[in-house]
């Protein structure tokens, strides 16, 4: 049916050696594709099996969102990001220098063009998309969503008109780092930062710390990161240095019951270590949460949240349900979970994704599929024609 003869061998010869250097030849080579695809197969299998013991998130970080994965802790093995970049240049170079622009090849060209767009979409999502969640109680509204895994240090001063909150991403804090809050006349110097830790009061730990904490925590103990990143509880110890020369040690814990306040020179400065917040260009209010079961069973038939979306003075009611998300500009909100308290109060959990390149995978997939189909049919047609030609005449 199809021509199984490797047309690539002609293509290789067609590469114009005098114009392109051996480097381009290497980058455009299908051999490089084979090597990358083989490595991809290995990494994907490895990363999948790794999930059994370490969970999806850690596997993502180690294999799928990184450049290298380290064998025995020190031998580097190419991971997904590196392989995808190599494949991207491989496909690009193949299109530019290897695959001949002929009518018979049109399907092949379209397919590889689609793959390029696919990579662009992937990179876009990988580098720029933002995932967070929004939990609402029936009747409550919110203007921001909260990250599931990233933390931030929020600082503000009370008692000077409108409250202005300054927030700094804290995930990459290292001991010795300093952050300036000029309007508050404050510099923060990090002493220690833990991505996951346990908190102890004076009586638990025994050793006493001079650091201030409003929830009565005196000691933090670093812990192994949880399988599910949302279960991590960050903690930090820093000294707040004021322009007057006053240094105050502060301890913050992700699970603090209340914000910690210090009062240098009669000011009221508040600190909070909290899950990172993302402002939304609208406010969302939960009107009603509904769930349905199949009669006489515990099998969920549907869940949906009726919400009120408010942008300025414009208010409209929308229903978000499984497979029917709410889209607003480059934000998409999905029904992800719910909770019904013992007193009957209903909560809904919405996943909030911000991705400007959301449509790229759709577009590229359609292009690749069309390209593959055209190539398949063209090969079928050409091969039948060839077979007819070669058939001995009576």
């Amino acid at each position, binding site marked *: 049916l199809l021509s199984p003869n*490797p047309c690539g061998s002609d293509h290789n010869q067609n590469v114009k050696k005098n114009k392109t250097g051996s480097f381009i030849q290497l980058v455009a080579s299908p051999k490089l594709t*084979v090597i990358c695809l083989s490595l991809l*197969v290995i990494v*994907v299998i490895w990363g999948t099996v790794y999930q059994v013991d370490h969970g999806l998130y850690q596997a993502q970080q180690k294999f799928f969102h990184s450049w290298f994965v380290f064998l025995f802790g020190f031998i580097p093995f190419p991971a997904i990001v590196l392989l995808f970049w190599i494949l991207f240049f491989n496909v690009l170079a193949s299109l530019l220098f290897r695959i001949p622009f002929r009518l018979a090849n049109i399907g092949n060209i379209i397919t590889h063009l689609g793959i390029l767009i696919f990579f662009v979409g992937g990179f876009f999502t990988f580098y720029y998309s933002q995932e967070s969640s929004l939990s609402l109680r029936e009747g409550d509204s919110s203007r921001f969503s909260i990250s599931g895994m990233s933390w931030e240090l929020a600082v503000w001063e009370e008692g000077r008109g409108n409250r202005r909150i300054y927030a700094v991403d804290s995930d990459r804090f290292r001991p010795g780092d300093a952050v300036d809050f000029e309007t508050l006349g404050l510099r923060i110097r990090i002493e220690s930062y833990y991505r996951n830790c346990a908190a102890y009061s004076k009586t638990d730990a025994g050793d006493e710390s001079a650091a201030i904490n409003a929830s009565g925590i005196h000691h933090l103990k670093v812990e192994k990161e949880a399988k599910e990143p949302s279960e991590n509880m960050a903690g930090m110890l820093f000294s707040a240095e004021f322009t007057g020369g006053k240094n105050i040690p502060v301890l913050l814990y992700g699970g603090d019951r209340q914000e910690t306040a210090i009062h240098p020179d009669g000011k009221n400065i508040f600190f909070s270590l909290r899950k990172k917040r993302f402002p939304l260009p609208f406010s969302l209010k939960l009107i009603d949460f509904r769930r349905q079961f199949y009669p006489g069973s515990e099998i969920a038939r549907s869940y949906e949240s009726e919400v009120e979306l408010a942008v300025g003075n414009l208010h409209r009611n929308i229903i978000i349900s499984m497979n029917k998300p709410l889209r607003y500009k480059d934000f998409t909100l999905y029904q*992800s979970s719910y909770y019904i308290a013992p007193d009957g109060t209903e909560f809904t959990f919405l996943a*909030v994704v911000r991705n400007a390149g959301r449509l790229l995978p*759709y577009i590229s997939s359609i292009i690749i599929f069309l390209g593959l189909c055209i190539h398949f049919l063209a090969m079928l047609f050409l091969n039948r024609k060839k077979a007819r030609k070669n058939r001995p005449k009576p």
Partner: protein
Amino acid sequence: MSRKNIILCLWLTLLAAGSVCLYPEPDLFTGSALENFRKMVILENGRKKPLDTFAQNMLKQFSGKSRYGHEPAIQWLARVLFFPEKASRDRIFLIGHSEVLNSLGVAVTGERDRYSFAQLEKSLGRLKDLAFSASRLEGQDRSIVENEIILLYNKVYVYQELRRAFRFAVPEPDLSISNPELKQWLKLPEDREIFSFLELMKNIRELNRAKQSFRKNENTGGFPPGNEVLKILDSMENWLRLNRESTFTVIYRPENGKENWLSPWQCLNESFQSQATAPDEVFRINEFVNDFIRGRQQEFDQSVRRFNDGVMNRLKGKLTAGRVSLEVFYNKADPFYRAQFFYGFSLFLLLISFLILKKWFYRLSFFLLLSGLFLHLLGLVCRILIMQRPPATNLYETFIFSGWITVVIGVILEWFKKKNIGILTGSITGIVMLLIAGKYALEGDTMGMLVAVLDSNFWLSTHVITITVGFAGIVISGIIGHVYVFQKIWIRENPKKKNILKNTFQSVYATQAFGLIFTFLGTVLGGMWADQSWGRFWGWDPKENGALIVVLWSALLFHSRLSNWMGENGFSLGAIVGIISVALSWFGINLLGVGLHSYGFTSGIALALSVFIVVEFIFVFSMAVYIRKKGLL
């Protein structure tokens, strides 16, 4: 193939398929006495289904088979419901470990055997104790035997519930009244002492009134005899306590526009509590139970029909009688089971055709393949009509559907090439896929309701169908890859060999390309669905990775061929490895037990899968070495 031959083939196909489907089955009552009983609607796991399907599901759960010997499941269920004593001798409880029986003190008849309720009855107390202690252990701390004990206890519990489902219609020794005046007062027949629960329920108000007056004037004697009334009411309460949770929900009583299904015992419990008359449906059931017990076939059939009509009228289009009848027809026809035989015979005749009467056996073999395909399609169409959704919602269905696609690809290959490969691969994959599906069918109802995230006909019909078609292509390619390797090694060198091999390789290549296109499309459609429901196109979830591995492997094969790193031999051997990637993606990923796609979790299949993978790898490796050594490149 000439037009005449095509018409002849189609005609024979229809004839054979029709005759197989409509072949009548023996019934408990002669004729079609159970026909309407099969169509009685019951709610089980959220789905309204005919009792025929329910009976099969129950029997599958208990014994791992959908028939009891030669009897259809409905006949067995009728015995359990109407003659529980007789049914208790049916050996239906499949017990896989003799240790379970040892711990119950039951005589072991075989390592893996079926036992009757009567055999287990004496050890029920012990079984309950063991099951309760085992269930207190954490899942991972339980041994296989402990799991089996819990399973057996659950089975026996459900079975006992079934035995009692219609007992309210039958006189019971603990519901006896000896005082003639009391019988007269309660308008009960004077010639009997034992009554049914329902007979007493007719007079529930009188009984309660008597109880109250007795309590007020205790020890005064007189009429009605208080002690006897109290004894009767106590017994009735015992019966209700035992049965009020009964899940034999065949009575439809909508409540505030919502669907509401009750078992007869639940209705009786409500009536008992409110001292109201039991609903009509309970009396109708009483009617047909007594007709059955007394052997009045015609009356039984009519009573059941009246009961069914009542339910259907109330359902008002939520379920049509046509769909119920279709499901009963589907159960009886068992098209997939029969299709397997057609594929098997087709393969057998093809092999015969290599030895004698080549032309005739070849034609017959192709015709049998087409017959199997027709039956297979019939089954798929039935499922679509019954469930009103595409036939790819669980692992069972994906195997059924992809099995059909593999046979279609086989038929197309055969139609165009006429080199036996289409019949050979089509019949083999057809049988294998249906056999695997058959294993999944034993897990219970194959038409379960869909959880919220899967309940989308659009995505089911696009993503699941395309990926299944893609997997079918890759599998067929791998099977033809086997054929190529065998031909390479076993066909003696002759001028024709080159042509034969070229032909086979073209098939490997074309089906691999077909598989790649659809697997790719299915995978990205899956991404789109995930984007619609979970908010991300790709999350490196095991199931997604499984499909990705299939795509990557297939793309790798084509690029290896392109770069001259693989010849025809390498490509064919690689196509065989493609089957492994599909197998891993299909059910291997579910065995990991992680990720969002937990709807297809399978158990006990790990060993079979591992054996398959090891055997295939050994085959590929040894063939590669052999071909290289013998210089067959």
